[in-house]
Every structure is written in C-alpha cells, then in structure tokens.
C-alpha cells in the first residue's frame, strides 16, 4: 500500500514558487530518494509534508488519509517524523533533553520513553557518551545523529530526512549513511530522503525521483539507475 502519496503539489514562498508540480509516492518499507540541485524544491517538498510549508495546490495523503491541511503537531502524531535541513537541534539543551523532547508524544509512557532512548543510544553510541553535554557544542556529525535520533524517539512510521550530508566531511557522511543502513536493517523503517549528494543516497535507495526547478523530471528504480551514468544529465539538465 502506498504509505505516503503526494499529488500535484505546488508550494510558494511569497511570490517565489518553489515547487511547481510534484507527484510522488512511498510504499511501506521503502527508501525513496529525492534528488536535485540547490533550489530544485526538495526541502520545500519535505516541509510541505511536515506541515510547515505554504501549500498552494495539491494533496498529501498518508495511509490514504488526506493530511494536506494538518498542523505540524498532528502530522507527527500520525507517524511522520522530520529531520530538517539545518538539523535544528536545540543548542542550549542537552543531548538527553533533545531526545526527551523528541519523545514528547510518548512522555506519559515512561518505560517506552526510556527504552526508546536506549535504542537510540545503541544506534548512535556517541550520543550516549555525550548525553549530558549541551547540544550546541557537538560536532556537525554528532548533531546530525542527534537530529535523527530525536526524530526516531517518536517511533515514527516514516522518516523524512532533508540532506543529512549537508556541511559534513565525507568520512562523517559515510558514518551517517552506515547508521541509516543499520536503522533500515533493524527496523524496516520507511524513509523519504532528500539529497544533493547523489552517490551515497543512491546506495541505500529503493527508488529515486529527480527534481529540477520544482518539477519531477524522472524517476525509477535505484538499481536501474546505478547502471546508467546519464543521470548526471537529468540531475543538472544538460
């Protein structure tokens, strides 16, 4: 069943139309990657699913339910967790406090909260080490892990990841993607991943969409694409 479905999406910021027309879907258990250059409209697409972007037109459906007009809070409770482009961790709160906030919807069920924190620490051991450290002092890679860990705290059905490689050194990016792969193995979590960094993203993807200037220009199975090298053309539009 299609877990997430976007039809005819159009997003604007004032007079600027960031997303002209996007149609895509994500099946349960899949990892779908949205690729595109800067300004293609990738982040706007994700943010519109999360409920914070200004949707002019279009529909977003989750498990068949129309969530287009839902508030960000409601969307999280439905099981859609977002890791935004800037990570947006709370720099003055500790690692643990960030995670606790991520698990807000489970706050009343204390044992679930504790268990989930343990799971996140298992996935990202470095966070356990730094658990009482103020998040603003973590390195870029650590912040990224914290952001992902925090999103996992709500036990989401689908994870939206916006450019996890942004601003990070190649070795760190490696590590992050290793963690994501581990996550997929352990939990079979559905993932919608947005990236500029094509190669890494393709290595964990089931399907790929290419976004250029606000529109989907191509899509297909990742396995098919890995063979072709002309995806560069689609990416940059030469």
């Amino acid at each position: 069943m299609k877990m997430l479905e976007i039809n005819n999406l159009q997003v604007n910021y004032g007079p600027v139309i960031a997303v002209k027309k996007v149609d895509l879907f994500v099946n349960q258990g899949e990892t779908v990657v949205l690729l595109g250059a800067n300004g293609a409209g990738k982040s706007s697409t994700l943010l519109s699913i999360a409920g914070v972007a200004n949707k002019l037109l279009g529909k977003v459906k989750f498990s068949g339910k129309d969530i287009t007009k839902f508030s960000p809070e409601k969307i999280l409770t439905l099981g859609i967790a977002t890791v935004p482009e800037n990570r947006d961790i709370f720099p003055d709160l500790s690692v643990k406090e960030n995670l606790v906030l991520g698990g807000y919807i489970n706050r009343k069920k204390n044992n679930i909260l504790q268990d989930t924190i343990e799971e996140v620490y298992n996935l990202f051991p470095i966070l356990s080490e730094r658990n009482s450290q103020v998040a603003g002092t973590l390195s870029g890679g650590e912040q990224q892990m914290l952001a992902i860990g925090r999103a996992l705290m709500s036990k989401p059905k689908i994870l939206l990841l916006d450019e996890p490689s942004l601003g990070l050194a190649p070795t760190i990016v490696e590590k992050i993607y290793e963690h994501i792969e581990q996550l997929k193995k352990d939990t079979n979590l559905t993932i919608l991943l947005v990236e500029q960094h094509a190669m890494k993203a393709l290595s964990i993807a089931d399907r790929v969409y290419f976004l250029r200037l606000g529109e989907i220009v191509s899509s297909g199975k990742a396995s098919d694409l890995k063979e072709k090298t002309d995806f560069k053309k689609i990416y940059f539009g030469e």
Partner: protein
Amino acid sequence: MFLQYIVDVLSLGSLYALFALGLVLVYGILKLVNFAYGELVLVIGYSIFLLKGSPFPWFFMAGTAILMSILFSIFTDYVAFRPVREKSVTAVLITSFAFATLLQNAALLLISAKPKNVPMPSFLSDSVQFLGVITPVRNLISIFVTFLCLIIFYQFMKRSTLGLAMRAAATNFNMTRMLGIPANLVITSAFAMSGLLAGIAGTLWMSKIANVFPGVGLEPLLIAFIATVIGGMRSVHGAVLGGFILAFIDMSFNYLLPQDILKFRDVFTFSIVILILLIRPQGLVKGPATGIRT
C-alpha cells in the same frame, strides 16, 4: 547604613525581577512585546478591592486575585495576540496597547477614576529591626517570596517536560511543533506563567502602595520593560538581573541625588535604555543561540 541600602535594593529588586521575568517569558517564545502586561497589576488591585468586606481570609483574596491575573493573561493572548500574530510585529504591539487601554477604561467605567484602597494585612507594614536595619515586614517577604519563586521557576524550566518544551519553543518554535509539541499549549502556558509571576509581583506591589487606580499598571510595565532591555530581552537570567540592576539604579538615585535632580530620574533611566539599544541591543545577558546556521 550600608546594610540598610542592600536590604532596600534587594527588596525593590526582587519585585522588579519578578515583573521582568513575567514579561520576558512571553517575549522569549513569541518574540512579541505584551503592552497589556502592566494591566495585570490593575487586575490584582481591583480583584482584592472588590473582595473587600467578604468573609474570606486575606490569603484567599490574594489567591483569587492571582488566579484572575493568570486568566487575564491568557485572555490577552486570545484577544490581542492570536488574531494578529501572523500579520506583523507592529500589529501585536498596537493590539496589546489597545487591550491595555480597554482594561484601564473598563476599570474607569465600571468602578471609578478615584483611587481605591486595597486592604492588606496590617502586619505587612510593621517594621522589623535587625543589625541596624529598619525595614517593613513586606520587604523581607518580597525578598523571600521572590527567592522561592525563582527557585521553583528555575527547577520547573529545567526539569519538567513543559518547561523543556517552553525553552525549546523560545529557541525554535517551528521545530518544537514538528516534534509533536502543541504550539497552543506552550503559548498558553507561557501566558499563564507570566500571569502568575505578575500576579505575585502585583500583590507585593499592592502591599507597598495600598491603592489601586486605573493607571496603576503603567509603572510596573515600564519597570518590566526597562529591566528586560537592560538585562536581556531573550534571557530569563538577564531579565532577573536587569530587575536588580534597575532597582540598584533607582535606589542609588533616591539616596544620592537632591530633589530637584531626582525628578529627572526617568530621563536617565530611559536614556540608558536607548543607549543599550544602540550599543548592545540584546542586553547584558545574551539569549539562547537561535540554532540556525548561516
């Protein structure tokens, strides 16, 4: 002599600090100035006045008044903030200003323009003497109550989930919502706490001036304002610090300056405000990092 001075500054500063804290709570999360904040003191004063002569003990009257302050604070959000929050910063300034005017004139209309006496337990005005210091009981109570409030407040913000959520919201409101934390809950809580703090400070204020009149809220508003600008508009510690600094300035002026210069005290304090806005607009204590990397 010096000890007397310290006690005076601390007792005045504790009052100022509470006022400033209440104002900064709302500003920190919403980035909006609440011009109707001072009117919570009006609510306190008139509530106690209206309950005068009732069979209830004074504590009950004060408690009810503080409850009214909380309710009116939340009400301010619904009337002046929520409808125009998205529109513009200027709009909120004006709507809260209008709401403040509304409350003042409602008091004028429904009660009276004349100052009304607000009954306070007499023991509050009794003097206490120790180590060469003479001070009314209420001053010591001010210091004690403020101390207690600050501890409780600090613990609450640090340890409770709601406190955590409010601190997060002050840093990055959108992200907080994306974690499933209801925006309305956070905002209403901020206004409620603001109302509580203003209510406690207002009760202490009333014990000082023993009188309520429609314009009573102006001075507390200005105090909160100035203290927050000096101390830091985005920092809870800054607001408290600002309150004590302002009390220090005011007390020092009272002690040191001759009467004919003293009447220009406000010129000095507001000039400091302007200077700080020019030189260090974030105030003395920097607020939380915004968490956004450029």
